[in-house]
């Protein structure tokens, strides 16, 4: 086995993919109702918003930045959707408006981070509060629920009479698109370069600021789309839709092997991370473990996803040092 193949197999994203497959297999065998088609539909619907938002989040974290405002953008898009629907606009025009609104909110993040050079963590904690607050300003604490059934039914429905949810038609092409861009285009490579060393990337002719700006725009637009789908799925536009989702998204991305310092990670790993978290929660819920107690699992996985590779590295370093010392002694 060549060195490269071995490194690939031992990398965190391969481990997480294997772990995800193992969890899916074990859960289907041991948890009753986990392997049913109906549960598969629910599983996909549950992970849909996290999966969507995690795609651009992966790009952003690979460049060494972060966007904590995504869940609030989702909520504001949902509020706008409810507000415009109450104003009597058609749903066909509301949906693009919500996505554009998300893109504009992302553009504000991007401007603050790249235009003014502010730290993205602080900026997006600020816009997290700002956008969620605006969502409440737009819609108050009420809910708008009378969306047309041909849309809400499509989001919760399945293809034909099977158990493959319609929303996969949206998620799968988007995931493939993001994966191809990240792993098979010069643009994707430039994201890793930025994350590894933004200054070096700048001197190699990569437009660092412009790239980051557009990543935030895309992140906002996708969060807007996720807000639309969330609203249609529960057929309820509320200002607090998706509250706290940013933490689940960041947890899934880091669990998928993306380094919080940037420059490292892969999209397949992230997708596995999203599925792993959703499947674990789903399986434990079927076992009647309370939803809030699942937080312990999410949090522990998040910490372990960074802790274990660190421990592995330090053990390897210790071995290597000992081997070198022994070689020197001989």
């Amino acid at each position, binding site marked *: 086995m060549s060195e490269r193949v071995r490194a690939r197999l031992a990398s965190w994203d391969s481990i997480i993919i294997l772990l995800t497959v193992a969890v899916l297999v074990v859960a289907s065998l041991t948890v009753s109702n986990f392997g049913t088609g109906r549960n598969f539909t629910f599983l996909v619907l549950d992970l849909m918003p996290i999966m969507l938002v995690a795609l651009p989040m992966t790009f952003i974290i690979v460049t060494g930045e972060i966007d904590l405002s995504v869940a609030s953008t989702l909520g504001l898009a949902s509020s706008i959707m409810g507000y415009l629907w109450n104003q009597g606009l058609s749903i066909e025009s509301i949906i693009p408006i919500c996505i554009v609104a998300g893109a504009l909110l992302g553009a504000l993040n991007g401007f603050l981070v790249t235009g003014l050079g502010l730290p993205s963590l602080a900026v997006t*904690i600020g816009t997290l509060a*700002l956008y*969620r*607050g605006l969502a409440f300003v737009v819609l108050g604490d009420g809910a708008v629920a009378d969306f047309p059934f041909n849309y809400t039914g499509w989001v919760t429905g399945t293809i034909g009479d099977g158990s493959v949810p319609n929303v996969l038609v949206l998620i799968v092409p988007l995931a493939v698109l993001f994966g191809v861009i990240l792993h098979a285009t010069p643009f994707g490579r430039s994201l890793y370069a930025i994350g590894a060393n933004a200054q070096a990337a700048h001197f190699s002719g990569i437009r660092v600021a412009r790239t980051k700006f557009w990543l935030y725009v895309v992140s906002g637009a996708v969060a807007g789309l996720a807000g639309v789908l969330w609203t249609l799925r529960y057929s309820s536009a509320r200002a607090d839709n998706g509250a706290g989702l940013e933490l689940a998204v960041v*947890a899934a991305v*880091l669990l998928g092997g993306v380094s919080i310092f940037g420059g490292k990670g892969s999209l397949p790993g992230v997708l596995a991370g999203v599925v792993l978290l959703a499947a674990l929660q789903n399986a434990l819920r079927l076992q009647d473990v309370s939803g809030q107690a699942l937080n312990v*699992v*999410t*949090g522990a996985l998040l910490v372990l996803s960074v802790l274990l590779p660190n421990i592995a590295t330090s053990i390897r370093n210790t071995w290597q040092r000992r081997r070198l010392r022994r070689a020197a002694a001989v």
Partner: protein
Amino acid sequence: MSAASATAPPTPSPVKRIVGALIRTRELGIILALAALICYTAAGNPRFLSGQSVRDILLNTAILAVMAAGQAVVVITRNIDLSVGSVLGLSAFAVATMMSANPGLPMIVAILAGLAIGGVAGLINGVLVRFGRVPALVVTLGTLYIFRGVTYSWAGGQQVNADELPRHFLTFANDSFLGFLPWLVLIALIVVGGVSVMMRNYRVGRELYAMGSSPQAAELAGIRVARNLLGVFVLSGALAGLAGVLFAARFGTVDAAAGTGLELNVVAAVVVGGVAVFGGSGTVWGAGLGALLLTVIGSALAVLDINQFWQQAIVGALIIAAICADRLVAVRIARALRKKDSHV
């Protein structure tokens, strides 16, 4: 290096120097904003300055300020502690359960228990950050989930009601020291004042600023980074635990959701209070002022009959304004330093 000390202009007259230093003090901006807001609100509705209203504002600030003091120290060392809201929930529920089971315990035991619970939680954070070499953002995001989940599993949907708690525990929140200063406010003042003095005048405080300015340089300079970092996280956790006791005493009814999302307000108070997220600058009493400002905004909205829903949006806008201001100051300092160098 603190922002204020780096900015001595080249040839100042004493008056100019003092005025210049005052203008560059980040805390002055908060005090002015606070004064303007209070004047405006009081002009609109004099009830805003009534004894009861001021008392409520101070009581609400106390809990936030205690947590902000700990968070400020963490942020000054270029870290962050997002788990404080969950630590508050865990401590509040644990102490409330303890007090309802043993009504005879004195208040000081409750406070020590809260400090201990929070301290242990903070120690876990610190060990993972320092010895696991996991970034503080990741660790405390994880323990935010974990501590909250532990509280939920323990509570299992139960809550502790005010009528199960001993009287002396509940009256503690409303009783006053010497008749005018509520105990909660006194504790907050002691915490903010004590930590401020530690950061300003003691060796360990200056070491923490040095660690925030440059972690590598601090290590090379012989500062005991590991010990200090553990201490910082224990302090932040212990203060969040103390805040949990105050929370339980003030509100009486405690369930597993106590303090959910509070970490955001705490970070907001710290950032608005002039502590730079890149570490190395800012003051603890500034963070205390930030907590006061956020609370006053909340009350002012209610008094002025402005839609309460604006509150969160305003907090968000304030955070962004504060980091923009920090950036502006940093850019001007850099320019001033460059100018000074070119004269030499």
